[in-house]
């Protein structure tokens, strides 16, 4: 296999968790709620997936990851939607809470050193015929099944958001909540569902990290992916297909290290570790003024003006 193919494979692999998280956040933000607690959903999903996969089943692991993400999103929703606390600070606190809670539970269960507990990992499944396509064959069709879920999920969410009545309702709340409420839409309930859906996908993102990529849990292993995903939503212009594309760009940046290693170009490894964060800053600066956020993002219906 040549360098370019390895690079493309790495791109799709690292893009997968980011895409899960960013797609979920896109749905939440289109309903007008910005959930910075996504980072918390990812680390909770990683931990939940780790525990549940310990039972021996990869798919049970994914279910556990989704449930853990759902629980964290529910906590965010309670404070940010029910209590109407500031969304951004609530999200930051939820992330800190989840990072601390998973670290505490992990140390409590496995001791301070952690455990070399082996969990079943999701193996790569090759899709017959398609996998032998030149160049992109292995990158797109020799991945863990979690990636294939995205191939269905992303278009499905696009279709739901832009081609169904319910999707129109969701976007209406994000743009003009008062008009949406006047039209008989239950804004609070739809926002709640949107946030919970985003939490489940954030949990899946954590599950992918543990079950398909790392094969074990580490404290703080979400490593800011939730915050990067929030930036990806901006770069993807709050559109599910855009978010998926932006996630691939980030995957490519992370996969650059395979490329550099293969080419024998020496750079401090920390430069590669820092690259996704630098790219986020550059990307956000680059899109400035050209992205249109949902008009009521971060506000509440009765405060929209």
């Amino acid at each position, binding site marked *: 296999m040549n360098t370019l193919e390895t690079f493309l494979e790495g791109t799709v692999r690292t893009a997968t968790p980011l895409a899960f998280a960013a797609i979920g956040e896109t749905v939440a933000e289109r309903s007008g709620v*910005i959930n*910075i607690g996504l980072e918390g959903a990812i680390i909770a999903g990683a931990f939940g997936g780790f525990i549940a996969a310990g039972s021996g089943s990869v798919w049970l692991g994914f279910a556990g990851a989704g449930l853990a993400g759902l629980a964290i999103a529910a906590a965010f929703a309670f*404070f940010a939607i029910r*209590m*109407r*606390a*500031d969304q*951004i*600070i*609530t999200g*930051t*606190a*939820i992330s*800190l*809470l989840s*990072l*601390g*809670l998973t*670290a*505490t539970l992990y*140390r*409590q269960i496995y001791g*301070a050193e952690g455990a070399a507990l082996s969990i079943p990992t999701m193996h790569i499944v090759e899709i017959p015929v398609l996998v032998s396509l030149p160049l992109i064959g292995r990158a797109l069709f020799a991945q863990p099944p979690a990636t294939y879920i995205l191939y269905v999920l992303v278009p499905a969410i696009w279709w739901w958001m832009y081609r169904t009545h319910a999707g129109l309702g969701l976007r209406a709340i994000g743009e003009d909540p008062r008009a949406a409420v006047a039209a008989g839409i239950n804004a609070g309930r739809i926002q709640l569902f949107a946030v919970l859906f985003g939490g489940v996908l954030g949990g899946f993102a954590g599950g992918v990290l543990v079950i398909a990529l790392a094969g074990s849990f580490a*404290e703080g292993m979400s*490593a*800011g992916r939730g*915050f*990067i995903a*929030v*930036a990806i939503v*901006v770069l993807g212009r709050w559109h599910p297909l855009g978010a998926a594309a932006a996630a691939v760009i980030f995957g490519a940046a992370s996969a650059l290290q395979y490329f550099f290693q293969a080419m024998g170009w020496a750079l*401090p490894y*920390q*430069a590669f*570790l*820092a690259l996704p*964060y*630098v790219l*986020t*800053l550059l990307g*956000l*600066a680059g899109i*400035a*003024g050209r*992205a249109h*956020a949902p*008009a009521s*993002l*971060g*506000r*509440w219906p009765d*405060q929209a*003006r």
Partner: protein
Amino acid sequence: MAELTLLADALVRSTPLILAGLAVALAFRGGVFNIGAEGQLLAGATASTTVSLAFGNSLGGLTPLLGALAGMMAGALWAGIAAELKRRFHVLEIISTIMLNFISIHLVSYLVRGPLQEPTRIYPQTETIAESAHLPIVLPGTRLHLGFVIAVFTALLLAWYFQRTASGFRVRATGASPAAAQSAGRIDVARTSFLVFVASGALAGLAGSIEVSGVTFALYENLSPGHGYTAIAVALIAGLNPVGVVGSGIFFGLLETGATALQRDFAIPSSLASVTEAALILAVLSFAAWRGRTVFGLRERVSA
């Protein structure tokens, strides 16, 4: 005297929390969402260590002062990146500052394994700074250093600034309602929030510098166990009031020293302290929301 030692340890621990807490309080008061105190603190610690090592013993007691100035400048510069991205490109500062936090962690990791590594090249840390670069101890027999006094003094200074100066009023007006400050107060909101952002970074940089010259005496990767994040809780629980920050900073200093002791004696993970902090932030937010107020008047802002 065991209690005195413990109390002194808690005050030592509270010092970076108070200074970084003041950084957050200043930023939030001015309507700037600086979540990057952690990175700015590391930038300050890095600059302070570099300066202290460069001058060695040649400056005597002036070294900590010079280190503090370097630390403040580095913190201001690090925050300045996010401030400029916000001013010029309207980049949401919560994302940019968190990204800068991660970048600073990797940068420190590179420096202490590369250009700044100690001469034997065994440990991932810098050389230890000279004795003369240490901050003086204010309570003999304990670890309590001058940094705590500086932190309290800085808090009083900031309180005076908010309450008694026109510039402090402009900051509060900008934070309370940018639109009103711009139209009714004829305040240059963009300029004010830029300056608030940079000054906030300087305070966080000072926290890092004092941590080096008062506690760690060297730069290494885990120099800050998340002081910059705890600072958010410290500032919010104090209601963004500088004098209150001293109180909540000491409270968290006690909490974290206690958590370390609990971990040692009863094997209770110290990460439980960060859970408590996050829970307290949520409690404060809910209380503020329940009273029908916001902590910062941020609800009217548009994101991104």
